[in-house]
């Protein structure tokens, strides 16, 4: 009965049909402060709005009644309203939906609308709607949604892996596996695992360490979050992990935040390795020791099958492996190989430049054409880096594996670091070795010469020793038996026999003295002759005391003070003084008591000591010869002819000179000249 095209009546007509009680209730509903109440016709024109709805939309009642409700919803989601109405008309008569309204002031509000068609008759139907402002809730939801989105963005963009897992227990509390429920984007990159959602860790990585399962199981059971660092060997990575129970209502779900700390851990391990290596190398001086230590340590640290120190001479196509480490059970590769069998010139340039990293020799373009060489040594993957020092050789380090291996930049850097540290040591060792070799060569030459000298000396020693002992023993026997025969059988021998015996004795004695003198000459020529300051007065007096033949009662010896001091060797000077005095006493005319006068003169730092005697004198012609060996002025005199040779030898060894001067017909004057020792105390 209501023409929809007509304006609506001033008061809500449908209420007329209500009982008074119903009308009260209806008014109470309309008076609700928080719930908007609207009645429209099927065309959507407002027939009735309550105060709460007006407040909600910001329109006074007058501006709404008779207006199409699209005025509100067109700004918002009018389409939904339209569908809703269409459905309402055709369906059982109720629908709830959410939509947006544009308030009069332009603001948007979200509303929850519950609509009911309240008449069976299509022509007379109206729609009753309760409208609840849900703007606040929607905003909160939107914020929550946005923050979750931000959170997701964060999780996906950070270098942090995230996953939610469900721990799988065997029995009550033994965690044996876990299933991935959710992961973030970086997960795949950080683990190297793809398509994990729904899969279990054991399925993906059967050899994953059991401690991982235990830790997550504990977190799930206790609800206590945990933070730890561990290595996942099968993934070749180290992780820093924070694990927490993901859902308080479900004690099997664990959230895991994790970070790949392999670089840091590896960095730490490498730093430690390098410092340990440096410590090990510090005391080593020999190249071979340094190299052996390096290849062993590096090979074990990188867990490779081989590590070798090689020297290359590209001009001669030579590759010499001087020292290598091989995993126990593998043969050493030390020896010489052909350099270019392992690659061409490009390959060599790569190695001697940046270094070469070959994950698989069968696949690398530089090594792939040379399979035989690698098969021969059993190497499938390797890293090589060289160092160029002085000389034509290039030295290098090679680490290799029997199987392919994905080397990373860190591996190459380590080889590089090791070389950088070791190379200076090797160079030092080489220069040390050169020095040592030069030194050793010198030592060897000195030793050679010393040995030769020692040989000569010991020959001489053996010779003089033999003369002393072996030659003199028979002479002693001759002399002694001759004297025994004369003593015991003198009566039988008669005068001539005794005379012959005496001559045997005398000859043997002479020969014995000759031998002794020769020994003295030998020693004077050979023995070390340390020079010291010698006070002549007391020294000569001492010599006289020690030689019975020079005693005062035999001869008169006069020392003219001060005699001063000279630089001389006591033993040699003793020989000189004893011989000169001995001669002076010996060579006197029969019946003449020897008289000897000793004085000294200083001239230009040299001190000349004179020994003047009253002896038979020396013919002018003989003066040149008397200092020669075996020269005798008078062969009938006892003496060996060696005494003055001894004096000459001894004085010369002390840097002095010796001579004889004419004493004007009465005896001779011998002198010896030595360095003056100055500051002498007079006798």
């Amino acid at each position: 009965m209501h023409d929809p095209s007509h304006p609506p009546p001033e008061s809500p007509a449908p209420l007329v049909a209500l009982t008074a009680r119903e009308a009260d209730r209806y008014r109470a509903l309309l008076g609700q402060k928080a719930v908007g109440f609207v009645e429209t016709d099927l065309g959507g024109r407002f027939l009735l709005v309550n105060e709460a709805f007006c407040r909600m939309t910001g329109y006074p009642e007058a501006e709404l009644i008779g207006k199409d409700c699209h005025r509100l919803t067109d700004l918002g989601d009018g389409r939904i309203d339209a569908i809703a109405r269409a459905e309402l008309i055709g369906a059982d008569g109720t629908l709830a939906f959410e939509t947006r309204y544009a308030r009069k002031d332009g603001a948007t509000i979200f509303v929850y609308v519950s609509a009911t068609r309240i008449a069976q008759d299509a022509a007379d139907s109206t729609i009753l709607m309760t409208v609840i402002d849900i703007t606040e809730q929607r905003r909160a939801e939107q914020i929550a949604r946005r923050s979750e989105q931000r959170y997701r963005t964060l999780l996906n963009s950070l270098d942090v892996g995230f996953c939610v897992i469900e721990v799988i227990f065997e029995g009550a509390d033994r965690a044996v596996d876990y299933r991935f429920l959710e992961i973030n984007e970086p997960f795949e990159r950080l683990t190297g695992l793809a398509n994990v959602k729904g899969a279990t860790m054991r399925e993906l990585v059967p050899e994953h360490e059991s401690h991982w399962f235990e830790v997550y199981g504990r977190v799930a059971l206790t609800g206590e979050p945990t933070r730890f660092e561990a290595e996942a060997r099968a993934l070749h990575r180290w992780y820093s992990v924070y694990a927490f129970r993901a859902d308080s209502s479900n004690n099997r779900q664990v959230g895991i935040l994790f970070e790949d700390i392999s670089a840091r851990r590896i960095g730490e391990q490498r730093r430690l390795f390098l410092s340990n290596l440096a410590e090990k190398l510090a005391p080593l001086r020999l190249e071979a020791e340094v190299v052996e230590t390096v290849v062993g340590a590096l090979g074990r640290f990188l867990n490779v099958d081989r590590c070798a120190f090689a020297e290359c001479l590209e001009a001669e196509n030579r590759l010499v492996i001087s020292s290598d480490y091989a995993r126990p059970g593998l043969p050493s590769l030390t020896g010489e190989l052909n350099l270019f069998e392992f690659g061409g010139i490009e390959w060599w340039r790569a190695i001697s430049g940046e270094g070469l990293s070959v994950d698989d020799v069968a696949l690398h373009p530089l090594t792939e054409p040379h399979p035989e060489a690698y098969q021969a040594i059993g190497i499938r993957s390797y890293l090589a880096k060289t160092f160029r020092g002085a000389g034509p050789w290039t030295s290098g380090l090679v680490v290799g594996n029997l199987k392919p291996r994905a080397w990373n930049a860190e591996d190459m850097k380590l080889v590089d670091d090791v070389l950088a540290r070791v190379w200076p040591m090797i160079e030092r060792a080489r220069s040390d070795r050169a020095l040592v070799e030069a030194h050793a060569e010198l030592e060897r030459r000195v030793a050679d010469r010393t040995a030769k000298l020692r040989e000569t000396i010991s020959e001489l020693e053996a010779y003089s020793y033999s003369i002393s002992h072996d030659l003199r023993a028979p002479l002693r026997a001759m002399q002694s038996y001759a004297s025994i025969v004369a003593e015991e059988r003198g009566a039988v021998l008669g005068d001539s026999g005794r005379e012959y015996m005496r001559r045997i004795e005398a000859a043997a004695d002479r020969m014995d003295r000759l031998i002794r003198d020769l020994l003295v000459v030998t020693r004077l020529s050979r023995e070390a002759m340390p020079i010291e300051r010698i006070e002549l007065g007391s020294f000569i007096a001492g010599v006289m005391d020690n030689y019975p033949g020079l005693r005062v009662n035999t001869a008169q010896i006069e020392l003219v003070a001060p005699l001063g001091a000279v630089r001389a060797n006591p033993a040699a000077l003793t020989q000189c003084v004893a011989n000169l005095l001995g001669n002076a006493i010996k060579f006197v005319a029969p019946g003449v008591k020897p008289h000897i006068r000793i004085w000294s003169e200083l001239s230009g730092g040299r001190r000349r000591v004179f020994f003047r005697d009253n002896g038979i004198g020396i013919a002018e012609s003989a003066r040149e010869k008397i200092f020669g060996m075996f020269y005798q002025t008078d062969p009938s005199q006892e003496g060996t002819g060696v005494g003055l040779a001894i004096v000459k030898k001894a004085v010369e060894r002390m840097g002095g000179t010796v001579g004889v001067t004419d004493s004007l017909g009465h005896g001779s004057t011998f002198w010896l000249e030595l360095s003056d020792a100055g500051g002498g105390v007079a006798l």
Partner: protein
Amino acid sequence: MGIVLYGEDDANDAFFMERAFAKLGRREALRIVPNGGIAVQYLEGAGKFADRSQYPDPSLLLLDVKMPEVSGLEALAAVRRRVAFAAIPVAMFTSSTQATDIAFCRAHGANAYLVKPSNAAGLAPLVEGLLRAIERFSVESPRLAIDGNLL
């Protein structure tokens, strides 16, 4: 007065020494062994030398330097290594005055270094001097007081 133990490998020198002792009427006071090793065995009382009635403790050890097997120098060193023989005077008796030998003997505690006289006629006075020196010998002044002692 004990005996003199003489280490000497040269039969002539041994004979001359016996003769010198005989001349002094001290024939019984001399025991001669042919090298340093046997001299040490004698001192130790090893083997047959255990019989001290036959081989009495010597009051002087006289050692030739150059002897086969164990030389006088080695015997000297061996004797001086043993505390038990510390008080026995040792006189070296040799034909050389090699400085190294003299230094060795001094360093190893010899009490005299004597040069063999070139004529055995000189032996008797030398032995007389030795025997006198032994009587005056004491460990406090270990150098034997005898003419020609090069130590």
